[in-house]
């Protein structure tokens, strides 16, 4: 318990973050409600998502008051997931392409095959 004494903060910090999370969630919802599309939509979604995630981890989960040894041990490993996401994105793209070619969903392959008729 003695170790926790450094973790007392004025309650106002939590109210501010709480309010910010509400506002950011409202913004996220507005992205859909106002029907932003394409890159604007994706950038807005990701921006609000990371801001919310950052506020929750840093303040609500007290991460910003932890010692760097713990912070790096917990927040470092998830970076490996970027590799997984990268690989799976490439793979998904490739699968999509082969499906289009062999199942003839788009006309990429049909056009080539059709020229022989």
């Amino acid at each position, binding site marked *: 318990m003695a170790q926790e004494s450094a973790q007392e*903060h004025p309650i106002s910090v939590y109210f501010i973050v709480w309010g910010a999370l509400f506002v950011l969630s409202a913004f996220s*919802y507005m992205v*859909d409600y106002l029907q932003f599309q394409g890159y604007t939509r994706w950038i807005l979604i990701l921006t609000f998502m990371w801001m919310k995630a950052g506020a929750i981890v840093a303040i609500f989960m007290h991460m910003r008051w932890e010692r760097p040894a713990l912070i790096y041990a917990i927040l470092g490993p998830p970076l490996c997931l970027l590799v997984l996401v990268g690989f799976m994105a490439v793979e998904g793209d490739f699968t999509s392409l082969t499906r289009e070619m062999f199942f003839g969903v788009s006309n990429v392959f049909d056009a080539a095959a059709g020229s022989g008729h």
Partner: protein
Amino acid sequence: MAQEVVTTADQTFGTKPGWEGVVADWSSDRQTFPVHWGKAMMWIFLLSDTFIFSCFLTGYMNVRMSTTDPWPNPSEVFALTIFGNHIPLILIAIMTFVLISSSGTMAMAVNFSHRRNKKAIFWLMIATAMFGATFVGMQAFEWTKLIVEEGVRPWGNPMGAAQFGSSFFMITGFHGMHVSAGVIYLLVVANRVRTGFYDRKGSYDTVEIAGLYWHFVDLVWVFIFAFFYLW
């Protein structure tokens, strides 16, 4: 337990900035994380849970990218008609606000746990659990609507790509299970606060550890909301 001398981790282990501090904490044959062991283990559990949810979301990304069928529009699938007004995605928006409210009450509970205000901790944790139960209830409603009215199944749906149902039930189901488990966890800890269990133990660390779990559940929802419902 009830030692009079208060020493902080910083006093015991020093405060070297950044990587210098990391190296100092990991070396010299001593405890690396000078925090309650339960807190360190909860963080490590949450790290593993991060990988599980990330695998689900990555799998979802992969099938959504690779399917040649049109992806059902979540904005329309999760729309509700309230008092004659057709509002897109409204149920999910309300669920998001409910979960954020619960995170707020939990943060307050943890804050009061440092001051050992039992009554405040207890009621704030009960409020958190109630918000959580409300969330699960709304999710049950959402699932029922999707299965009964929209005909969504894990293997197919009338609106487009079959993978929509598979990812949806897997991801939200696993998250809902976490919320349900969290509600039980919170109720157990809240009851122990009420009965003075942690006074006898001399430590309210468990409240903070339960808080970490609960905030994580909210954190996962942030990502599900962004990637599954909004994307």
